[in-house]
């Protein structure tokens, strides 16, 4: 358990504490190398690439954009709702969101 946490602390982008999930999603969805993925997400968020790992910048911005925050904010989008906002932000289709929309009557 300590090993993955050591990697996260040493090199990771802190997930939804900052913007690690968004950069990872671009790598996984579009095979973007690290520099390209960071540039793409930074442009979409209108921040610098350094800001993507900066919890101070990303905490408020994530809440404003409704893309999920690390602390449990009552009423804020979570799960699929947050990912539907990420779809729009990153101009992507996310499989579970597609499935969710497909189930609505």
């Amino acid at each position: 358990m300590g090993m993955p946490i050591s990697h996260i602390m040493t090199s990771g982008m802190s997930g939804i504490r900052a913007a690690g999930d968004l950069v990872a999603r671009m790598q996984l969805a579009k095979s973007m190398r690290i520099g390209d993925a960071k540039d793409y997400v930074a442009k979409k968020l209108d921040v610098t690439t350094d800001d993507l790992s900066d919890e101070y910048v990303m905490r408020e911005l994530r809440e404003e954009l409704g893309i999920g925050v690390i602390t449990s904010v009552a009423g804020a989008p979570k799960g699929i709702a947050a990912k539907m906002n990420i779809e729009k932000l990153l101009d992507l289709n996310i499989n579970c969101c597609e499935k969710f929309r497909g189930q609505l009557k």
Partner: protein
Amino acid sequence: MATEYKLRMGDGKRIFMTKEQIIADLKEGMADAADLGEIPDLSEDEIDKLVEIVTMPSRMVGVEQGKEVPVTHDIGTIRIDGDQGNSGVGIPSSRLVGAMMHERAFGADTMELGHIDYSYKPVKPVIAQEMQTMEVCQANMVVPLLYGAMPNMGLYYTPDGPFPNPGDLMKAFKIQEAQESMQHAAEHLTRDTVWIMQRLMASGADGVNFDTIGAAGDGDMYASLHAIEALRKQYPDIYIEAGMAGELLLGLHGEMEYDGTVLAGLWPHQQAPLAAKAGANVFGPVVNTNTSKSSAWNLGRAVTFIKAAVKASPIPCHVNMGMGVGSIPMFETPTIDAVSRASKAMVEIAGVDGI
């Protein structure tokens, strides 16, 4: 008396080395990788940077600000509720709780859902359970959530599976029969993996992690590459991570090819283009840790191999850095000083896109 620095052996034991000994071990490890892989040495500047990282006095080190990379995870939630066999810590919890703990408590960039047996084949009888769990996890998670397991082609041979064991056949000098058995096993492995992922994609999975490709040799990679190819064809947007089991792809069959390339004997920089060709989005190269050598020797060797793989790869490389690979000590609880130094070196010198 020369200053001595605290390092580790490949098994994690504390050792003390002078700067001269560290440089000698870094260069020896580097030379071993360069010789085996027929790849370039590190530059003198890169060796200097490795020495700087290894000799930093802090217990834990970190990458320079702005150089952070995403971290992907194999084994996933089994770390939380699993037993020692999966390096789990035995906390009674659902897999949803494990996944959410990684996302919201640990700051994980991605997560993975996996089955307690963690191979694709045993997922088949419990596929409905896996689908239901994927649906529940996707409903609650924000970070990309893959389904992960090991191809583990060994499960297709007797006594665990339907096909004659190639090891037994080869001992009887039945080489052709052994090759035929591997070919049959590979076809079944491809078919099973695709079938499982078709159902998990129907349940909202973001994609798939092939964890430890090649553990059963070249047939294991042959099957995995064909499964990747089929999944990419059926699901153009599926996220596919292809992670290897070891640094050298063992040629148990010896003559299997993918895209005109013989798979046996490939090193990480030769494996990466094939994973990309098949349709993977992210490649996970491996370099094995030698427990009888120092962390300096292992780091010099691992960084040399991975730097070449990153350069050759058309897709992002998330280097494997679990216990016993990527210069991480082969130990159940790898020490933070060794993990953080290896992690920093992979990002800043090998140039990996993620871990």
